[in-house]
């Protein structure tokens, strides 16, 4: 009996999934798990708000503005992001997620892209909480005039943290003392991002200006370039981290 006409013998029934589909599937899994367990994001947000309180007492100031404000905002966002980076691959390492992924016939860089996008999402939610909290607790000048221009350095900084954080998280997750090594490796690599973001944000948070400062394009340019270069490097070397 010959098989039905629409099934051809010897051909695979389904073609292997394209990378975009794999990335979306992995991203959906990540966000679903995070939504159900709420492991990373609430901790990051709470840490950021608490850090602002600590800064108030450490600096003994009621309001900050200008470069100081930019510095406090970025240092807090950076260290809160480290918490997220630490937890990024832990579930995969502890519960065999890496092995399961390696068995699937898909492009391995999809894991990098999906994890980086999920970290980007966590950072976005973190900023939704942290930036208004900062404006409420510590920032002198009103946030409303700075806000549209503030989105650019925030976005570029997030991209840099996502690219480098994901790469280093993958590197350190299966080592001893992973929580210690992660920040130790990531922070020096993120110094250029901090430089660019803090310098770009400082004129936006200047006190006493009616229309706030203009966004310095040179810093945004360097940030974008840095993000691009490190994104490409992470993409190139990630495969070697997954083999086992």
């Amino acid at each position, binding site marked *: 009996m010959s098989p039905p006409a629409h099934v051809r013998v010897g051909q695979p029934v389904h073609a292997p999934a394209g990378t975009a589909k794999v990335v979306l599937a992995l991203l959906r899994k990540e966000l679903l798990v995070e939504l159900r367990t709420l492991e990373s994001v609430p901790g990051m947000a709470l840490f950021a708000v608490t850090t602002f309180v600590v800064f108030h007492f450490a600096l003994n100031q009621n309001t900050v503005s200008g470069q100081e404000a930019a510095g406090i905002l970025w240092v807090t966002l950076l260290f809160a992001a480290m918490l997220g980076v630490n937890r990024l691959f832990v579930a995969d390492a502890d519960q065999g997620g890496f092995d399961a992924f390696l068995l699937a016939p898909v492009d391995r860089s999809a894991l990098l892209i999906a994890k980086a996008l999920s970290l980007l999402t966590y950072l976005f939610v973190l900023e939704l909480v942290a930036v208004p909290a900062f404006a409420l607790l510590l920032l002198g000048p009103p946030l409303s005039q700075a806000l549209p221009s503030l989105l650019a350095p925030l976005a570029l900084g997030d991209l840099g943290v996502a690219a480098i954080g994901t790469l280093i998280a993958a590197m350190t997750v299966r080592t001893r003392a992973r929580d210690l090594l992660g920040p130790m*490796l990531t922070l*020096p690599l993120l110094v*250029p991002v901090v*430089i660019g973001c803090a310098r770009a944000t400082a004129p936006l948070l200047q006190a006493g200006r009616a229309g706030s400062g203009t966004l310095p394009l040179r810093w945004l340019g360097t940030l974008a370039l840095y993000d691009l270069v*490190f994104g490409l490097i992470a993409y190139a070397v990630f495969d*070697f*981290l997954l083999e086992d």
Partner: protein
Amino acid sequence: MRSPSLRALSIATAVAFCVSLSLVFFYAPIEAEEGFLQKIFYLHVPLAIVSLSGFVIGGLMAIAHLRTRDQRWDLRSYVVIHMSLIFGAAVLITGSIWARASWGHWWVWNEPTLVSFLIIFLLYATYQPLRFAIEDPERQARYASVFAITAGAFVPLNFMAVRLSASYVHPRVLGSSSNLPGPMMLTFFVSLGAMALLFATLCCYELAAKRTRILLKARSRILGFQ
């Protein structure tokens, strides 16, 4: 087995250092602004150049390791990065001494090269903790190579970023070496050559020691089974 070339390298390094130190102390003129203390430049800048080149070369060797899966490239990469880190510590110390002599402070933030160097030093200081936190030797070598490549690419980017951020209001402490007069230029290049020879010699010694230890372990393992 490799002692003839090690001996030759050591002798060459000793001679080069004698020549370079004689040039520094007896030939190079005393600089007008900073005086005798400026001569630490002949130690500090070659150390920095050799150290940074070492980091980048370590990254290139790591690329070779990942492409060929030959463990010998990983050993070379490890030794070169380790040696560059030690030279890097010397750079920071000599830079500090120079800053103290010129500016009165042990550390200055308005010298972008020194600041970039500190960041790179802090990054590479994590190389060995990363290596020794991974037990499986093949995975350790692979992850270390990935780190060496990433960090090697970071070196030039970091220098550009920090240089951009430097304030141009304050004059730079360490003057640029592009407009050196003739005698100083000669002394500088001889010192650079001597430092590079020292780096190569020390790396060869460390490689020889490591290879010997590996051979010894292999032999004792074989003997242990008999």
